Every structure is written in C-alpha cells, then in structure tokens.
C-alpha cells in the first residue's frame, strides 16, 4: 500500500481495521509484533489467555490486514503489516490535523476579534 492509499481503503476494510484496533489485547499484540516477528506461543506469553483465545485475536488482526503470517497456524511467526498500519494511521492523523488546523485558524480569528474590540473601546472613550 502506498502512502495515501487510505483514501482507497474500502469502508468495509476500515470497519474491520477499527474493530481490530478497538481491543486492548489486540493492540498489545501489535505492540509486541512491532519489535519483531513472534510465534503464537510467544505472543500469548504476556497475556493471561489461552493460545486458542490468542489465535482468535490473531485472526481478527489478519482479516483487517494488520498482520500476516501463518498458514501453519501454530508455528509460522506472525509479523506486522507495516504499510497497512501506516495507511490507517495516516488516515487517523489527517483527521486530527483537520481539527488542529481549524483551531489554529480560530486562534488567529480570535486575536483579530480581540483587537477590534479594543479599538472600539478606545474610540468610545
């Protein structure tokens, strides 16, 4: 996926991604995979959870395209799909930036409104 490809992400895919990221365990798994490939056993270790439970979380992450690996469900190490993740984050970042940008413009407008008020007050005196 190229930078900016989030625009082409289908709504279904985005839904799957958001759903995948909404869970604390799955975010933990992603954080672990960010430092390198890991097997299901390794991924399960920090969580008080059975391997089948972890496998279920992995399936959700795989369906969202956030991680890859493992036709042999137990042995093949999972790894993070960095570009896919970057696509989502770019989308989320853009979102936050829209409001940051709006508010910077509002800051400038408020400064202008304040100085206009001051001028008006001075004229009244």
């Amino acid at each position, binding site marked *: 996926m190229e930078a900016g490809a989030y625009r082409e992400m289908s709504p279904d895919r985005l*839904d799957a991604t958001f759903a995948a*990221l909404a869970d604390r365990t799955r975010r933990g798994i992603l954080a672990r995979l960010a430092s390198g490939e890991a097997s299901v056993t390794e991924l399960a270790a920090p969580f008080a959870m059975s391997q089948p439970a972890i496998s279920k979380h992995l399936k959700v992450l795989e369906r969202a395209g956030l991680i890859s690996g493992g036709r042999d469900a137990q042995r093949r190490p999972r790894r993070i799909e*960095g570009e896919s993740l970057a696509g989502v984050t770019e989308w989320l970042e853009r*979102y936050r930036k829209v409001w940051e940008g709006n508010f910077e413009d509002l800051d400038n407008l408020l400064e202008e409104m304040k100085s206009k008020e001051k001028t008006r007050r001075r004229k009244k005196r």
Partner: protein
Amino acid sequence: MNATLEVTTPSDREIAMTRVFNAPRRLVFDAWTKPELLKRWLGVRGGWTFAVCEVDLKVGGSYRFVWRGPDGTEMGMRGVYREIVRPERLVNTEKFDEPWYEGEAVDTMVLVERDGKTTCTTTVICGSKEIRDSVLKSGMTGGVAESYDKLDEVLASIADGRVSAG
C-alpha cells in the same frame, strides 16, 4: 500561542475534544455560531471554502454547512440546535450528507472562561459505536481515539525502520 488539542473517547459512543483559546468565551461562542465568523476558520484550509453557511440560532432552529473543495467536490452537513446558553453551552445534532454516514450524532460544546482564556470542550455522542466510527471517518467532527496512542508508538517504531514494512 501553541495550545494542544486533546482528543479522547470517553466511551465507545463518544468523542471528546478539549482546547484552550486565548480569548474570552463570548468571542469563542460567536466564532462557533455566526456564519461570517465560521467562514473564517471551520474547515477552510487547503482551498476549501464554504459554499453554504446558514445558521438559525434558536432552539429548534437548524444549520446547514456545505464546503466546496478546490476541485469542486462538495461536502455537506446539517443539524438542529437543541440548547443555547450563550456564551457557555451549545447543544446541536449533526448529520453528514455522505451515504456511508450512519445515523445522527449530538454535539455538546461547553465553554469555561478563566483569566481571559477559554477552555472549549466538545463532546460528540453517537447513537451507536458504528455511528461514532462514521463520525471519526467524516474527517471534520472529531479526532483520534486515545486508545490509538499505543498504535502511534507502534507506527513510530515502524517509521524508524525498526520493523520491516510488511
């Protein structure tokens, strides 16, 4: 002034944003409710401008915003004012025109003034988690969930090249 924008998701149906402005709240309230002022700041970057900006500021009154992009693309939203307590509180519904946008959300804005500065808190309450995600997708109404901070760390490490990109 370089104020930070704080965005949180208090529940899976809510998005909250907090920002401090260096101005008394009556000015902030006006900036959010007067078309001639809204046109100066709300969603007007990158060549986007207001094609329609109508506000009927009374309880039960409606507003209609349509933005036009540099390539002529239009994006619209509308809603109804439910509570107006000038200059401290504003409650309105919001609905984007996009077909993928589900349901309606309710926005509450609270302005608290202290020493000439105003803390503006807006909370978007959605009928369901699905609607909240729609709001997040709108690109105009909120921000990134606090829970994604963790993801930022993950991505920062990818950007650093510590993790292979797929």
